[in-house]
């Protein structure tokens, strides 16, 4: 790359305005290496909208911007248009493109969920990538329904978010789609395998990727991967997939690292440790992780 400049169409080009150490961009890079430019990326408003600011874009393939609530509806239009072109013989099946929705958690868990649910009802053939940075990262990190309990955000300042993170995996699985998986860029092999698996299927497919966010979560950008690995090792971000009506964990952390080690690295949880550790709340958060793994039987 340093000799010739980026030219490969299976890579996202550099030069994007996303924050240094972005865990979402990291996942998108890994996804794009598998899917490449034979895609139409339908992007709802969020951090990733800033990828394509006229006249610059990192995508080698197509990109379409939609409002926050409508990415799945936009994807329906793109898919229909491609199907009509195919049916009329205007493009060959070799020229067909995959429809990929790209949104953050604000859209995936909240504003866009209604349109997404409707697309699932219709069995729309699309792949949905959600980069979940657990808040409205693009506007100063206000809480979303993906924000974990007790996390400090711009709109939960005093003692952190009082709600609990919504289970989007279960919501998708309840629609009985073709595929649902959680992943994280800090586990690149697991992520790549899931992207390949999803790409080979038809129908609605979700890749729900936890995106450690140095800016919104308050940690040094060099720690993005470390934070991601700890999310898996502590068991707070279970890696799993749903296929053929069954959910299976792809990595079970049997010797789980104490959750506090994950929380301690992040400024958004600093109030749980300073001025002195809030043992009661830390124990509650740890218990929620224990309760989750208790019901995992494989």
């Amino acid at each position: 790359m340093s000799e010739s400049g980026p030219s490969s169409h299976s890579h996202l080009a550099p030069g994007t305005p996303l924050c240094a150490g972005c865990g979402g961009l990291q996942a998108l890079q890994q996804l794009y290496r598998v899917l490449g430019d034979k895609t139409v990326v339908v992007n709802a408003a969020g951090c990733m909208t800033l990828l394509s600011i006229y006249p610059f874009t990192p995508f080698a393939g197509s990109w379409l911007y939609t409002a926050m609530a409508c990415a799945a509806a936009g994807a329906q239009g793109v898919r229909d248009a491609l199907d009509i072109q195919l049916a009329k013989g205007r493009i060959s099946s070799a020229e067909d493109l995959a429809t990929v929705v790209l949104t953050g958690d604000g859209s995936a868990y909240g504003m866009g969920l209604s349109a997404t649910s409707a697309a699932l009802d219709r069995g729309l053939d699309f792949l949905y990538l959600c980069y979940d940075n657990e808040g409205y990262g693009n506007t100063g990190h206000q809480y979303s329904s993906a924000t974990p309990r007790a996390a400090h955000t711009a709109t939960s300042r005093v003692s952190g978010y009082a709600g609990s993170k919504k289970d989007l995996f279960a919501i998708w699985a309840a629609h009985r789609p073709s595929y649902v998986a959680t992943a994280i860029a800090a586990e690149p092999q697991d992520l790549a395998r899931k992207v390949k698996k999803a790409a080979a299927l038809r129908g609605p497919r979700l890749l729900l990727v936890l995106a450690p966010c140095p800016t919104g979560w308050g940690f040094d950008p060099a720690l993005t991967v470390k934070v991601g690995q700890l999310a898996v090792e502590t068991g707070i971000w279970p890696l799993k997939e749903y296929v053929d009506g069954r959910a299976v964990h792809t990595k079970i952390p049997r010797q789980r690292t104490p959750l506090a080690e994950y929380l301690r690295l992040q400024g958004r949880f600093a109030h749980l440790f300073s001025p002195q550790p809030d043992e009661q709340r830390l124990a509650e958060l740890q218990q929620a992780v224990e309760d989750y793994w208790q019901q995992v039987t494989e």
Partner: protein
Amino acid sequence: MYRIRLHGRGGQGIKTASRILGTALFRSGFEVQDAPRYGAERRGAPIFAYVRADDKVICERGLIHQPNLVVVADETLFDLPAANVLEGLDGRAVLLINSERSAQDWCRQLQLPGQVTVLDGAAVVREAGRVPAGALCVGAAARLLGVVSRRALLQAVAEELAGHDAAAIQTSQQAVSQAYELFAGEAGLVQRLQSGAKKSVTTPPKWVELDCEALPRAAPTITMAATSALVKTGLWRTRRPRIDRALCSRCGLCRTLCPEGGIDLDGEGYPVIDYRYCKGCLLCAAQCPRRAIAVADERTVSPPQPKEGEP
């Protein structure tokens, strides 16, 4: 009227700095405006903030093109044309730079008609503790204005940082106070310009009348792929990772994990970092299993030389 323009990078607390300064001036009896301007809205990207203060109602609006005080929290912004740090500096304006270099040094380099003064923020931080550069600059700026008492300033800090823990507020107050003290000898250096002395302080844009053009020309479709490579985000970097080939096992993990796609493999399978784009997140250095990636301060290495004709 005081027209103050603050420059910094996202993450340096420039928005908060302008709010503290605005509140301190308000508490000192002034009519005040303060407004941040985010631009790319990204940590590390240039950010601007504007403060106006007057003893009567302020009818001006918008960006400050002709300031009487310019505060630069990050000296590397002088290299960025987009930051436009020197815009509108005339003989009466004061330029405050957060830098370890001397004022004489900066005067020589910039060749400006106005006064240049320097805050050694790094020295204050060594003594008072870690405080964002923006806050330090506010302490100095308030003293340069000469019309803000220490009491009003510290109250403003407490007010604007409300919601942060008490220790953080106290550290900030100490640092702001120290910066304020350092400028005792230059209190009131900033001249207050009579509002209305200049009829118009903003230069009206030079309108160019354009005829309606055909749509493909007026709103051209960009069909070229991957144009973001024209944007050299390497300018964001303050520290750079460097791969030691002697230690590298060519596992390629750094390439896989780089969020920017800024690492490629050479013919022999060694990773090569493209410094035109590397934003300096340094997660490659943190993750390298052989610890083959060292970290160097960007100021100690020569700037990358982009080759002619490259995108």
